[in-house]
Structure formats: structure tokens, C-alpha cells
């Protein structure tokens, strides 16, 4: 190998304009919906963390004499079949839903990212193999896949998290792979390769920062999806087990009392909707801010 006699281009010398700016404050400020959502989610997270202090009642405290009470000053969201305070259960349920969502996204994104990088960068048969496996997973409607995994592992919250997470992997893999392929064609990567930068270095230094934006957007939207899916599983009885307060499970418990006590279903349903809505709006805002012309296939 002959000695190189010219300077080696490094990240610092490669033109910065190839790396798009993440988010400008002005752009986010324009999207009020996203800001509101962010605020709501921050408040929700704080409330979830502080639930033990904030909740007026023990969410597990059974008081059968007080069953099925409508919302009042004593019980802001009424009581359920066992006399438990629904408002307190909502607060604790926030913990469960947020935790499940975040963990599920982590379980989906990390392997998804790695698989996508490997598939996109290496190409050829390993690419084909990985994508076929992803196709196989996508051939199952998402909830069926999650359902099967939970039925396999046993119904409990942890397994619901894992199931929802695994069901989400293909989306990340596809996205990352697509972005990697697009990035591979760009000039600066070619340049880096031409001067002998090693594979992994290229990936981490050059490709990753470019695809960070779409991944963030996907992760946010996927968070909404994960929360919905996990509560669906609990609704079907396959997620959080009673008496754990979880919004989907609470909805399931209230199903038989729709007319006598509609607040049992109304409150957790509203909670799910507001949370998922906020996450969705935040994701939309991020997407608009990061690249208004960005198109994904999902």
C-alpha cells in the first residue's frame, strides 16, 4: 500500500451542508399543535412519575360499598365495579401506558436499525434474506402477530411489550434500509469510500446522522401505534393482568356496564385518545419541521 500523500478527508472537512439541520426553532414554533402536544406529553410524564403522590386514592383499594358511583367531587372520574377510584387508576395507568410504549419502541427500533443498516449497507444476499424475513413478519396483520407472541409467552404486561415491539421491527428495518440505500448513492459517501474510509466508520459518521431524522419521526409515530396496540391487547385480556391499572384493561372491565356506568369506559378511552393524539401530532410536527417534502412509504 503506497503512502498517502494528500490530506485524508474527515468528517470535519466534508462539507457540512450534506448534513441537514435537525430542527429550527422557528419551524417548530409555527406548528402550534405539535408544541401543545409536547407540553401535554411532558405534563403526562411528570404526572405518571408522580402518580403515587398525586393520586387521591390507592388504585387497588377495593371498596365494594362504593361501586359504580358517577363522577363527583369525591371521585373525579367515578368508581368502577369494585369501588376503586377511576381517577387514581388513570394516573397509574399513565405509567403503564407510557412505559409500555417507550419500551416497545426501543425493542422495535434497535434491532430494526441494526438490521436495516446491515441490509442496506452490505447488500446482495444478506439484504435479500433480511428483507424476506421482514416480509414474512409483515404478512401477519400486526395485531395477530402480537397476539400470537403473547399467547406463546403467556399473558402479562412484559410479554405484551415484547410482542408489540417485535411486531414493529420490520417498519424500522425497511425505513433504515431505504435511507441507507439513498445515502449510499450520495456524493459524500462515495467520496469517503474512495479515500478508503472503513465501512463502519462510514456508517456511523456519515450515514447515521442523515437518517436520524426519519427514524425519529417513525419512532414517534410508532410510539402512538405501540400504545394503541398494547391497550388493544389488554382489552382482549392478553396484556396487563387485573388488578393492574392499565387504560385498555380498564376499558375492557367497563364493557359490561356501558349503560349503567359509562364513565368506566369513557375516562380511560379519552386518556388513550389524548395521549395517542398528542404523540401523533408531535410526530407530524417533527416530520414537517425536518423535511416537508419527505415521503415515506408507510
Amino acid at each position, binding site marked *: 500500500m503506497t503512502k498517502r500523500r494528500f490530506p485524508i478527508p474527515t468528517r470535519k472537512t466534508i462539507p457540512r451542508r450534506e448534513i441537514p439541520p435537525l430542527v429550527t426553532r422557528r419551524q417548530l414554533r409555527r406548528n402550534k399543535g405539535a408544541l401543545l402536544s409536547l407540553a401535554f406529553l411532558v405534563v403526562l410524564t411528570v404526572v405518571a412519575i408522580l402518580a403515587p403522590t398525586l393520586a387521591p386514592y390507592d388504585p387497588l383499594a377495593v371498596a365494594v360499598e362504593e361501586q359504580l358511583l358517577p363522577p363527583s367531587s369525591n371521585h373525579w372520574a367515578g368508581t368502577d365495579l369494585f369501588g376503586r377510584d377511576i381517577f387514581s387508576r388513570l394516573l397509574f395507568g399513565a405509567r403503564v401506558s407510557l412505559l409500555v410504549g417507550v419500551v416497545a419502541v426501543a425493542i422495535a427500533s434497535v434491532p430494526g436499525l441494526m438490521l436495516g443498516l446491515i441490509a442496506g449497507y452490505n447488500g446482495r444476499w444478506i439484504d435479500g434474506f433480511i428483507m424476506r424475513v421482514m*416480509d414474512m413478519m409483515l*404478512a401477519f396483520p400486526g395485531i395477530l402477530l402480537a397476539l400470537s407472541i403473547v399467547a406463546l409467552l403467556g399473558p402479562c404486561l412484559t410479554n405484551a411489550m415484547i410482542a408489540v415491539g417485535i411486531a414493529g421491527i420490520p417498519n424500522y428495518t425497511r425505513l433504515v434500509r431505504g435511507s441507507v*440505500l439513498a445515502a449510499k448513492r450520495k456524493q459524500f459517501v462515495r467520496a469517503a469510500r474512495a479515500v478508503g474510509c472503513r465501512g463502519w466508520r462510514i456508517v456511523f459518521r456519515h450515514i447515521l446522522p442523515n437518517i436520524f431524522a426519519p427514524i425519529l419521526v417513525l419512532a414517534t409515530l410508532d410510539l402512538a401505534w405501540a400504545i394503541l396496540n398494547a391497550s388493544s391487547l389488554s*382489552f382482549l385480556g392478553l396484556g396487563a393482568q387485573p388488578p393492574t391499572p392499565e387504560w385498555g384493561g380498564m376499558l375492557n372491565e367497563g364493557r359490561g356496564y356501558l*349503560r349503567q356506568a359509562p364513565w368506566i369506559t369513557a375516562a380511560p*378511552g379519552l386518556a388513550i385518545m389524548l395521549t395517542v393524539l398528542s404523540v401523533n*401530532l408531535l410526530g407530524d410536527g417533527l416530520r414537517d419541521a425536518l423535511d416537508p417534502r419527505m415521503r415515506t412509504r408507510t
Partner: protein
Amino acid sequence: MMLQYIGRRLIIAIPVLWGVTTLVFLMMHLLPGDPAELMLAESGGSSQSIAQLRHQLGLDDPLYVQYGRFLANALRGDLGRSIFTNRPVTQTILEQLPHTVQLAVAAMLVAATIGTTLGIAAALNRNTWVDSLCVTIAVAGASMPIFWSGLLLILLFSSLLHWLPATGQGSLKHLIMPAIVLGLASSGTIARLVRSSMLEVLGQEYITAARSKGLSERLVVCRHALKNTLIPVITVMGLQFGYLLGGTVVTETIFSRQGLGRLVVDAILWKDFPIVQGTVLLAAAVYTVVNLLIDISYAVIDPRIRYD
């Protein structure tokens, strides 16, 4: 060249189908529970009679034998008989398929109508309060858990107003609420896509040209913009169909409708292997075909993508 592309994709589809069925086969056998025990449970059958029934059902053959038997039969078009009802799987699936398709198509129509309307309204009034409102409504609809919106509609229209039936199928009245519930969830994505697609189209030069010719706004939108807006949207709707099929599971449960969703969920929980295997095979085949059609349409529309 095109044929070659299609041919290649078809060939790739086969191992995917095979992989899916194998995966399902393995999973079903790993799930807890024993169908023979289940069938004899209520009568308190002894372990001897349970073992005998297992043998008769062919459940105590080694896994690879059962697998081979299933594959051989499937290739001949025989998907076996349900363990519990003892009726042919193909027949059972064909009985339930129309209901699910009916629901999915109706939901798709609802989603397309709501989504397109909101999306166009948003795009035409970009950055005004109309835009924000439409987008928020669309996303709110997509954020509502299906089981919640379903229960709410039942409470309102069945329990309180007595306008619509809460359960069953067979008439348009039975289809309205489930279709709305399921379609609403999908309309969010469509609305967002229509909006961004239309915004992009509206920014194109030929639109500006049409406007400068003096054509009315309505003509511009309807004749020129709409067509091109809808092309990518239609392809996305194809993918949404797969998501809708998943959504039918919860919808069919809430509204006590028949359909593949409920059939498969029950079959998974009760370990009715033949039904699960048959349905998943069908779903995978449909998914593969839909995917293939979408890829082909992409390749037709945009030659750059053709050889990825």
C-alpha cells in the same frame, strides 16, 4: 424487462409464503394447551381417552411428520378440517371471508371519503385554522382506539337512540357502525397523505400554468390536481388494506360480527391448528399479491425505482 421483474418478484414470494406457514406451524405447536384435552375436558375424560383422541387426531406424530402432512395436503388444496367443528377449513374460511371483506371494503370507503375530504380541505387552506382543524380531526380519528369508538357508537346509537343494531350483520344498518369505527382509524393516514400529496402537486409548474391561463380554481383543483394527488394515495390505500384486516379483529369482537378476524383469534386461543394455518396462509398470500401489485404500479409510474 417488465415480465422479468414480475417473474423475479413472484419467485421471491414463494419462500416468503413457505416461511410464513412454517413459522405459524411452529408457533401453534409451541402455544400452551392441548386440543384433545380441551375436547374431552367437560366430560372429565381420563388421561387414557385423551391420549387416544390425540392419536386419532394425529397429534402425537412427531412434528416433522405433522408438518409434512400439512404441506402435502396444502399443495393439493386441502387445508384439513377444523379440530373442533370437524368441518373443512377451506369451507370455513370461505364462509367467513365475505364478511371480513365486506367490512374492510366499507371501512376503506369511509376512510377514503373522510380522509380525502379532510386532506383536500386542509391543503387548499394551507396554514389557516381550517388546515389545523382538519388535520387535528383526522389525527384524532386515527388516535381513537377502535374498541373505544366502537363502544361509544354502540352506546349512542343502539343503547340510547335505538337507531342502529349493536350486533350482527346482514344489512346496511349492521354495517354502518363497524365501517365507521374501522374507517375512522385509517382516515388519519389518508388525510395526511392527501394533504401533503396535494400540496406538492399544487406547487408544480403545470398548475401554475393552468392558473395563469385563467381557469377557475375549482377546475384547476378537480381536473388537474386531484388526479395526480390520488396516485400515491391509492398505492398507500393498498397497504392500509392489510392494516384494516388486522383492525377487523377488534371490530368483529365488539360488534359480534362474523369474519376471519374473530375466527383466527378464537383459533389461536383454542389451538385449532388447521384454521390458523389456513387463514395465515391466505393472509400471507393476499399480502404478497397486494405488495407485488403495488411494487409493479410504482415501477410503472416511476421508472427510476424499477430496479431497486
